[in-house]
């Protein structure tokens, strides 16, 4: 059975989740919520944290997988339909981060006339990752932790002297409506809470598991909030121009040194966990498809999912902002339903274990 460790779920939230919110999200927040971007982000984190808490509560009550719970409650066909819907959702939710990261890569990793060809090999890596299942996600999280910790710490340390935190004043100056808009339009970046639902039954629930996961999530959230504060402290009114925030904040300290842009090495290092995390929704999609078509070789859905994303990437090469507006401003309810409402609804699924479901065995 596809296994993941509780520790690895914690690392997923503490190390991989924060980085994905440090590319376009800060500029988007600065556009909507201005100097109150921390409130918008905090609201999203609280909401997502609540969903994670609910899923962990569910994990403490059952050793069944999400699929088993659906099967218990609605039967096999309904479970397959739900998993199919989630497979589509995961694929859908992967699109914007993909375009976001493509933009990040083409700007930060290249100088002269970059082409989509430079990003395309990502899909080959993603196909390989999808075949590896949850074990791949978990162990990648183990690797991601030190890489993220070091690179993010260095980037923040380099950026810190440039930050003027009075830029965050006046508190509430942007107005409740703008803060709310920032939160609402940021929902696309907060679908991580769905992953623990699919990890149900694939990890061993141990004592204080919920506390550990929530604390890790809080650590990741704190890192993002600190980054946002430094980011706005550095850019103030021009923050909304600073897409690819991760690559922007540390350059002022290094530009005029004899070593030059040494921070780029840490930005490149941070791209590694970003690659890992960009694969996660596609891996989840493949996991769902595998459940729907039980005897399906994972390579087939992995190849199809990546081919679809590659095609979308090619066609939407120049349309990131249109896609962003579509996803964040028009289709936010899709994210709200799948990432927030659905996990809460799962609390009402029948948890009674039938004899055929065995307890979770140890991984590794």
């Amino acid at each position: 059975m596809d296994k993941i460790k509780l520790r690895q779920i914690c690392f997923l939230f503490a190390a991989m989740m924060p980085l994905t919110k440090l590319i376009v999200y800060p500029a988007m927040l600065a556009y909507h919520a201005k100097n109150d971007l921390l409130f918008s982000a905090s609201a999203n984190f609280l909401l997502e944290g609540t969903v994670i808490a609910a899923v962990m509560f569910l994990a403490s009550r059952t050793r069944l997988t999400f699929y088993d719970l659906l099967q218990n409650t609605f039967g096999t066909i309904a479970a397959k339909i739900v998993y199919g819907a989630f497979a589509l959702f995961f694929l859908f939710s992967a699109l914007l981060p993909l375009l976001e990261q493509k933009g990040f890569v083409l700007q930060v990793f290249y100088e002269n006339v970059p082409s989509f060809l430079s990003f395309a090999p990502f899909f080959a890596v993603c196909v390989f990752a999808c075949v590896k299942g949850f074990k791949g996600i978990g162990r990648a999280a183990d690797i991601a932790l030190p890489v993220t910790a070091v690179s993010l710490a260095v980037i923040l340390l380099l950026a810190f002297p440039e930050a003027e935190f009075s830029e965050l004043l006046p508190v509430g100056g942007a107005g409740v409506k703008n803060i709310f808009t920032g939160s609402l339009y940021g929902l696309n970046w907060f679908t991580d809470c769905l992953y623990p639902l699919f990890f149900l039954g694939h990890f061993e629930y141990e004592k204080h598991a919920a506390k550990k996961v929530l604390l890790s999530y809080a650590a990741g959230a704190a890192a993002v909030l600190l980054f946002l504060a430094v980011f706005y402290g550095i850019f103030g009114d021009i923050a909304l121009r600073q897409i690819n925030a991760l690559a922007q904040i540390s350059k002022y300290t290094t530009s005029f040194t004899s070593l030059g842009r040494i921070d780029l090495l840490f930005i490149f290092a941070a791209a590694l966990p970003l690659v890992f995390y960009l694969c996660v929704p596609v891996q989840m999609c493949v996991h769902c498809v595998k459940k729907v078509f039980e005897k399906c070789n994972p390579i087939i859905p992995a190849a199809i999912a990546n081919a679809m994303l590659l095609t979308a990437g090619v066609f939407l090469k120049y349309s990131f902002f249109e896609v962003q507006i579509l996803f964040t401003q028009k289709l936010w309810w899709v994210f709200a339903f799948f990432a927030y409402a659905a996990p809460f609804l799962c609390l009402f699924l029948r948890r009674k274990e039938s004899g055929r479901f065995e307890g979770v065995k140890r991984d590794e």
Partner: protein
Amino acid sequence: MNKFWTRIFLIAAAILLLLFFSNDFGLINIQQTTVVTAIGIDRSEEEGKIDVSAQIAMPEGKKASSVLVQGAETVGEAIAEFNAKTGWYPTLVHCKLVLIGAEATGEDVFSSLDYFLRSEFVEDSCLVAVCEKTAAETLQADSPIGELTSTAIAKVLSSQAQKTGQVSVCNLRDFAKGYFSVSESGFLPLVSIKKEAEEASSGKDSSQSGSDSQSGGSSSQSGGGGQGSSDVFDASQTVLFYRGKRTETLDADETLAFNLADTDTDLAYGDVSVYENGNKVTYNLKIKIGKKAQKLKIEDGVPVFTFQIRAKAQITDADRSADIVEIAKTAIVPERVLRAAEEKFKAELDGIMEKTRSSGCDLFRMKQKLYRSRPKDFETYKDGLLTNARVLYDIRFDTLR
């Protein structure tokens, strides 16, 4: 490894090798690139157009070259023209300096500077300065120690220079932040060229005077070399901007006072004169800023802006002879000198405030402070804030005991 993965591996390897060996997918490598180290923007003779000059770093051992594009609509167009004229692709990632010619500052400089904010391949960490003459002329000046002009100017505008208070340094980000803020104001150092003594022409590198073949008809070589003289750069004056246009200029003493009151300067040297026994004596003081703060309050409906500065001073020199005991106690500053220093500081700040009032340049970001501390009162007071605000000075200089 099963057959499937073997095939995938072989296909991937073949594609990569094809890419590797062809290396021709719009790729512009180091051999086809010119490294632009500075950009100069001047007003063109043609109405509404600009002249853009670029300093290009040449490989080791050779002097820089300058390329000039005249009569461009935008900076972007000029950069594209560099490429067309020279056949080299200009890369701006190492562009550390943007110079604006004096005449170009009469209009909103952001009509040209926004190129650097829009472009993804230009860093907004570059320094920005105004030239006393034209930017092109400044970029052609010859550094006395033979380094790139842009490097020499960047040294004058370095953070070390800022720390000693001689220069008010500003990078593009900070200038843009001020421009787009509620204050709509900013400042830039004014770079002027001062001729040094004639140099022996035999020591000159002949390569610098050679005509630059890459720059086409509009090119000009690194300046000054042929004349046998070298230049030094001065940036002790500061230009104030409001809504992107030049409004006022702070002289060297005002620049120092501004730096001591507002920027990162925490250690500076300044002269103060006192009368001793009927004679004017000038002391050179080393000033170490302990605390600097600006507060904006509304008292009885009147905005009150207070400078609070605490500093320690030491005598480093005086223009009169002193006895050995006085020299031994040189660190200790007499009370009258301290008070005189405070007064001088106040007078300079007063002068700056007067210039900000007359120009509308919110140099001390009073509007931002008002917006941040009293957002509800912002609309009420913002328009007359600079002119109506009462300015108080809480300045105290102390000596080492």
